[in-house]
């Protein structure tokens, strides 16, 4: 019998390991489940994925359903949905959680409609209050927040990456690993992946970077944007951008940080010539410290910054590079 706080987590593996956001989602799932005496089950799709189940258990899953097979090697909504929907129906959790990643954003709406329920995407808070699950999510580009409840079950939510405390692993935890007897009919897969071009930008580790130098329109040109690269180099950090430099071709589109770009949480985020639109802040608000350089004292970015320099990047940044070289010796 399902408890009123049973949670199902859809895990996401990449390159044979669990992406770090899984631990954040499990941390949240555990807190919600524990509040009502419920259990956390996880679902894991992949090829030879069994080896990852103990990691999910160590991070808080009480059981792991493993759907193992070649059809699950790379994420594809139509391949995952039949088994996922079957597991959800069988276990009737109060909520289904997954990361708000490319996968979660693509999978969760379909799952919601298949299970005749609804989804709240990009959630940053969740609580069970008076027996009801309340989810908080940013809206209006980050200018607003809405708190939503559900009239149907299960409630499905994608959880914004870096919004939750990750679960602390406990190697002593025990849990069941259940092999999923797949109900997938390969004939139901209508969308075919016919090609993949890997990125050439090498900026894949923005999510892991401890220091990020992000450039905005205030860097004025491709040459101006080079200042961001120079500063990042002396700091040993990565380079990111607001949307406009990507649109102008000063840097590759994959550098974009924000609502429709990447979500990062470095210790230090240097924003050069970025105004601080909410859609940009959505991608960097969980940095430990934002430091910004902007000519406009009234720029919104300063309201999110620990330190601010009112000045022209073309003057301040070269001087800053020299000063940091001195410190680093």
């Amino acid at each position, binding site marked *: 019998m399902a408890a009123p706080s049973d949670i199902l987590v859809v895990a996401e593996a990449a390159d044979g390991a669990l992406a770090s956001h899984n631990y954040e989602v499990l941390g949240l799932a555990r807190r919600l489940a524990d509040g009502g005496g419920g259990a956390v089950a996880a679902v894991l799709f992949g090829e030879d994925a069994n080896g990852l189940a103990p990691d999910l258990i160590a991070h808080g899953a009480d059981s792991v359903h493993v759907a193992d097979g070649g059809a699950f090697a790379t994420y594809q*909504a*139509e391949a995952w949905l039949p088994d996922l929907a079957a597991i959800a129906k069988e276990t009737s959790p109060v909520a289904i959680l997954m990361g708000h990643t*490319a996968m979660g954003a*693509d999978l*969760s*709406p*379909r799952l919601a*409609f298949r299970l005749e329920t*609804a*989804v709240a*995407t*990009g959630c940053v808070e969740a609580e069970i209050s008076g027996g009801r699950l309340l989810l908080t999510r*940013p*809206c*209006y*580009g980050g*200018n*607003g*927040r*809405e*708190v*939503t409840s*559900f*009239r*149907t079950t299960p409630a499905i939510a994608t959880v914004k990456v870096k919004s939750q405390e990750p679960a602390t692993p406990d190697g002593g935890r025990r849990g069941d690993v259940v092999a999923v007897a797949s109900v997938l009919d390969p004939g139901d897969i*209508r*969308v*075919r*992946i*016919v*090609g*993949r*071009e*890997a*990125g050439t*930008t090498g*900026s*894949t580790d923005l999510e892991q970077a401890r220091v990020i130098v992000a450039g905005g329109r205030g860097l004025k040109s491709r040459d101006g944007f080079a200042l961001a690269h120079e500063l990042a180099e002396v700091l040993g950090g990565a380079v990111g951008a607001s*949307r406009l430099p990507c649109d102008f071709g000063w840097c590759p589109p*994959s550098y974009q940080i924000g*609502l*429709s770009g990447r979500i990062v949480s470095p210790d230090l985020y240097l924003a050069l010539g970025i105004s601080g*639109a909410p859609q940009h802040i959505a991608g960097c608000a969980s940095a*430990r410290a934002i*430091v910004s350089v902007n000519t406009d004292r009234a720029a*919104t970015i300063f309201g*999110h910054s*620990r*330190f*601010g*320099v009112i*000045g*022209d990047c073309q003057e*301040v940044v070269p*001087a*800053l590079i*020299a*000063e*940091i070289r001195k410190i*680093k010796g």
Partner: protein
Amino acid sequence: MRVIVCVKQIPDPEIASSLFKVDEAARKVIPVPGLPMVISPFDEQAVEAALRIKDKADADAVTITILTLGPESALTILKGALSMGADEGVHLCDAALEGADSYATAVALTHAIRKIGDHDLILTGRQAADWDAGVVGCGIAELLDIPAVTLAKDVQVDGPVVRVERVAGDGVEVVKAPLPAVVTVAHELGQPRKASLRETMRTAQKPVAVWSAADLGLAAGQVGEAGSRRTRERLYAPVSDIFCEFIEGETPQQQAAALAHRLHEDGLV
């Protein structure tokens, strides 16, 4: 071939944050006086994607139908899409349809798509830039039981198949799906075209149907707030409580030195 593009009218998503105000009691956003409502940017790019398909084909072979659910004012964005070059419009305009969540919106749009009749491709933006949910596109596909492909940066129709280049992290994934299908369009598709003088002059002649919930065969309980599966309990504008320490200095060199010092002191460098 018919391409249906679902578009939504929203407040300008790029207004200064200081202009964003909510009525917490009504759980609604207060419109900024004098500021025009706009087509959601990703939806405008979905219109562009449809026009690029039409440009490549024999113009008469492709009909682009713009579908919007919204109040009377939403006619403006429908006409805007027609003056970019779309052929006809359908406006779901009925007070009963207002206040819908993503589910009730998808239901209404799906009923409209069925009523429009033959269709090969349905395009939407990746998400509407007001609620930022990104649910309706895939929802329509599920309700119609047809494939959906999200985050397109390029959409090509080749006979009975749609070929989509989708944004996938750092790279691109190329997929093919049989038509009819739903494709949601990402910012990476590129700039939408401006309204052309020729198309703007023809807009008055282009047909626009206005349908109510009853026209769609939907009862009051199936649409709008009543037909929703989620309830908005609260809406507020979060405030940042970060105090910014401005780094002083007579010259950029002094500012840079002071900043480097503070960063070092705080262990950030």
